[in-house]
């Protein structure tokens, strides 16, 4: 029964034996760190003294301490140190162990030449709460040195212990001041030392200042005690530690060097300014981020609603679209090659191919002709039935034209219908006219001529955008020129009735001037403002984050405006080149709210935009190219805003919205087209006059009122259009017709 138990015990002992002992052939069972060491050369009393210390410790600290103490003791004994002296040195095991725990070191135990009776006092001074090991080691070294000097100077250990008092507050003071000797001079009760420690701690001064204050307060209390005052009375008369610390700190800071005070003042001012700026910035940013534009109207929707109000049978667009859909991408590619030939007619070398194209796509042409017979265009942007046409045109997946997305920040309006009517339908009709002339089919030619003029009417109905009317005027002028050429070169092609019909149709094809005061560009200004500003209900509002997105989209097509936008947000030039989106830069994140605050409010910006727009229109419609005053007025106003840093930020949206270049003379061509149209009308009327009177009239006045309602006025001279008969042919002279383009034609 006992055999297995004995065997188990043995195995357990073997398992618990440290490997080092097993290697030596010893089975010792579990051993304390000290037992594992070779202590044979040490006297038993020394081993017991070491054991008494290590027993107080645990873990790695215990093993390490045992190893180092054994090693040190062996070395000291070899050097001739007496056994009794070693035992005496290690005779305060609790304090020594506590100090080892606090400092993590053991070498001081045997190196410090202090009586062991002082270790409890040393421990009380060093072993403060929440002290790092490095600080504890430094403090231990200082205290040992200080006590050793005093001991060697003749003070007894008992005196030293008594001087240190309860030492807890003194220890705290030692750590606060990092100084030992001056404070050990004062033998104060713990309660008074606590007051000193409390005050010194609260002052948060430099160490030297703390030491000076601590010494002075200690001296004060020591004087009080000497005079026979009680601790309680001294504490009471001292007053509040907190107030004392606050006042002492304030007074001490005044005693610091000027440079330090100046630095502190600067730092405090900077910090205060930073806080104020940060608070302001936060408020501004929060206010800015909360601002949302109020989009009240949708231009596209309004245009579409107008088109929807037209009866379906009166809408020409469905027929145009049907015809355009028949032009497949492949057919369109072919069309690009023969487009010029369609305009030139038989004179072009590609005319046979053009004729072939017209024959091949006669179904599309028939649809176009049918469309021109309808009174209204009736184009609807957001019509799902446009998808196939858009797909054909864009060679990609269908999309919603001018989508109503409220988050859309792109201000541009796509006009693919304008491109198709002008680029595909009109050339095909022109080509068909050339073909009819070639074939001598007068009726068809007249029909096509009238259809082409009807197309112009549809063209002008694309939208309330100035570009539509301008383009219509341009096309009207060219078609009128075309008709004038026909009447000069082939006056007999049409009979009198046919010329009369063509005359009447051309007469109703008006050349209109764009006028921003009506709708035209004002609608864009209002749309722009509603997309970038909030609306307070009184027509005013503040700039929004989406406004910057709109501006970002607008500057992408102009390097000048991009540079302006970048300069406002201090985007470095290099970064600007790499990162085109200013709104994604860090400086934008920081500055957007303050900049938005500096931007003019909605009413102010609207006023400036309307003013700039009026100047632009004056410059654009200026007929006299030598008079640059209108142009200068616009550029001067634009430059005035650009030159002032304040105005540049205030009117940033206006500077980006408006053109930064010279106004284009494209806009002033309206008068030129007007003259072309009037000239064509006069020539038809003159031809009709010739047929009845056998000769051309000598003046235009002779045509009035039978052939012409009134004598047309030349807008360039504000006088009647100059007419004469040269070499038996009527000739009209005007600056408008001396344009290089007209000469070529």
């Amino acid at each position, binding site marked *: 029964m006992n055999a297995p138990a004995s065997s188990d015990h043995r195995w357990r002992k073997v398992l618990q034996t440290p490997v080092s002992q097993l290697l030596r052939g010893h089975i010792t069972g579990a051993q304390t760190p000290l037992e594992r060491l070779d202590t044979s050369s040490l006297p038993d009393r020394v081993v017991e003294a070491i054991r008494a210390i290590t027993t107080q410790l645990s873990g790695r600290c215990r093993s390490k301490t045992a190893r180092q103490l054994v090693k040190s003791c062996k070395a000291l004994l070899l050097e001739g140190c007496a056994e009794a002296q070693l035992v005496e040195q290690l005779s305060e095991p609790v304090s020594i162990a506590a100090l080892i725990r606090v400092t993590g070191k053991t070498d001081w135990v045997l190196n410090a030449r202090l009586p062991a009776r002082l270790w409890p006092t040393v421990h009380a001074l060093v072993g403060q709460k929440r002290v790092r090991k490095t600080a504890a080691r430094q403090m231990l070294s200082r205290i040992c040195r200080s006590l050793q000097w005093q001991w060697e100077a003749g003070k007894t250990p008992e005196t030293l212990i008594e001087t240190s008092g309860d030492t807890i507050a003194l220890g705290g003071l030692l750590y606060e001041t990092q100084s030992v000797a001056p404070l050990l001079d004062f033998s104060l009760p713990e309660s008074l030392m606590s007051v000193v420690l409390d005050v010194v701690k609260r002052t948060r001064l430099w160490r030297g200042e703390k030491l000076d204050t601590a010494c*002075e307060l200690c001296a004060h209390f020591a004087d009080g005690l000497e005079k026979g005052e009680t601790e309680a009375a001294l504490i009471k008369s001292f007053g509040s530690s907190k107030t004392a610390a606050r006042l002492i700190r304030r007074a001490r800071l005044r005693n610091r060097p000027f440079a330090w005070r100046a630095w502190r003042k600067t730092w405090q001012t900077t910090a205060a300014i930073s806080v104020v700026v940060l608070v302001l910035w936060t408020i501004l940013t929060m206010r800015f981020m909360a601002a949302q534009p109020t989009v009240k109207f949708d231009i596209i929707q309004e245009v579409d609603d107008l088109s929807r109000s037209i009866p379906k049978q009166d809408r020409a667009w469905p027929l145009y679209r049907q015809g355009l859909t028949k032009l497949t991408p492949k057919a369109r590619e072919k069309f690009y090659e023969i487009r010029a030939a369609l305009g030139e007619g038989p004179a072009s070398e590609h005319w046979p191919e053009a004729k072939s194209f017209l024959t091949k796509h006669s179904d599309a042409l028939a649809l176009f002709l049918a469309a021109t017979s309808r009174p209204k265009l009736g184009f609807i942007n957001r019509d799902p039935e446009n998808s196939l046409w858009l797909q054909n045109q864009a060679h990609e997946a269908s999309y919603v034209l001018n989508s109503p997305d409220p988050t859309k920040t792109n201000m541009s309006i796509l006009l693919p219908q304008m491109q198709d009517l002008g680029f595909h339908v009109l050339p095909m009709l022109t080509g068909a006219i050339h073909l009819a002339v070639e074939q001598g089919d007068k009726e068809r030619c007249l029909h096509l001529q009238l259809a082409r003029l009807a197309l112009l009417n549809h063209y002008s109905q694309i939208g309330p955008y100035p570009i539509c009317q301008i383009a219509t005027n341009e096309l009207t002028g060219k078609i009128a020129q075309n008709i004038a050429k026909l009447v000069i070169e082939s006056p007999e092609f049409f009979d009198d009735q046919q010329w009369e019909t063509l005359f009447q149709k051309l007469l109703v094809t008006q050349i209109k001037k764009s006028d921003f005061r009506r709708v035209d560009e004002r609608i864009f200004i209002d749309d722009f403002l509603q997309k970038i500003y909030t609306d307070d209900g009184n027509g005013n509002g503040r700039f929004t984050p989406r406004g910057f997105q709109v501006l970002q989209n607008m500057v992408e097509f102009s390097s000048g405006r991009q540079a302006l936008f970048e300069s406002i947000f201090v985007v470095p030039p290099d970064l600007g080149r790499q990162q085109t989106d200013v709104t994604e830069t860090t400086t934008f994140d920081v500055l957007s709210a303050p900049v938005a605050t500096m931007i003019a409010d909605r009413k102010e910006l609207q006023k400036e935009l309307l003013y700039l727009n009026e100047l632009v229109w004056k410059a654009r419609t200026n007929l006299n190219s030598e008079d640059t005053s209108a142009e200068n007025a616009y550029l001067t106003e634009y430059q005035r805003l650009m030159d002032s840093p304040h105005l540049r930020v205030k009117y940033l949206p206006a500077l980006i919205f408006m053109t930064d270049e010279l106004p284009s003379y494209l806009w002033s061509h309206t008068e030129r087209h007007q003259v072309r149209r009037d000239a064509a009308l006069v020539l038809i009327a003159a031809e009709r006059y010739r047929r009845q009177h056998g000769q051309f009239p000598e003046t235009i006045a002779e045509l009035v009122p039978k052939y012409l309602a009134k004598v047309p006025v030349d807008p360039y001279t504000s006088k009647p259009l100059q007419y004469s008969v040269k070499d038996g042919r009527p000739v009209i002279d005007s600056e408008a017709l001396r344009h290089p383009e007209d000469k070529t034609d």
Partner: protein
Amino acid sequence: MRVERELMRGAGPVAVLKLLEEGAKYGYELVEALSKQTGGILDMGQSTLYPLLYNLQSQGLIRPNWQESESGRKRKYYSLTAKGKKRLAGDTAQWVAVATAMQSLGILPHVPPRLRGGEA
């Protein structure tokens, strides 16, 4: 009697300067002297005295000096500087003017009363 804080703030520095006119004194000595010589009227806690001394020091009116006392312990003695003497003279003249004005208003009697426990 407790003196108003604002009044004490004006009287404290000149009182300390006046005490130091007699010779260098340390903190506790000044507390004692103030209490005794003003009959406790200008009695100030040490939590007020030491900051006051540091302020006077920062203005260059007094100069501190650590010295060993008879008991062998170190004490910090404060003595008046030339600037401090000048300031004391100026402040004294102002206080005399204020006292005279107070007398003429009947707030102060013509012969100031002798304070308990010390010299006025």
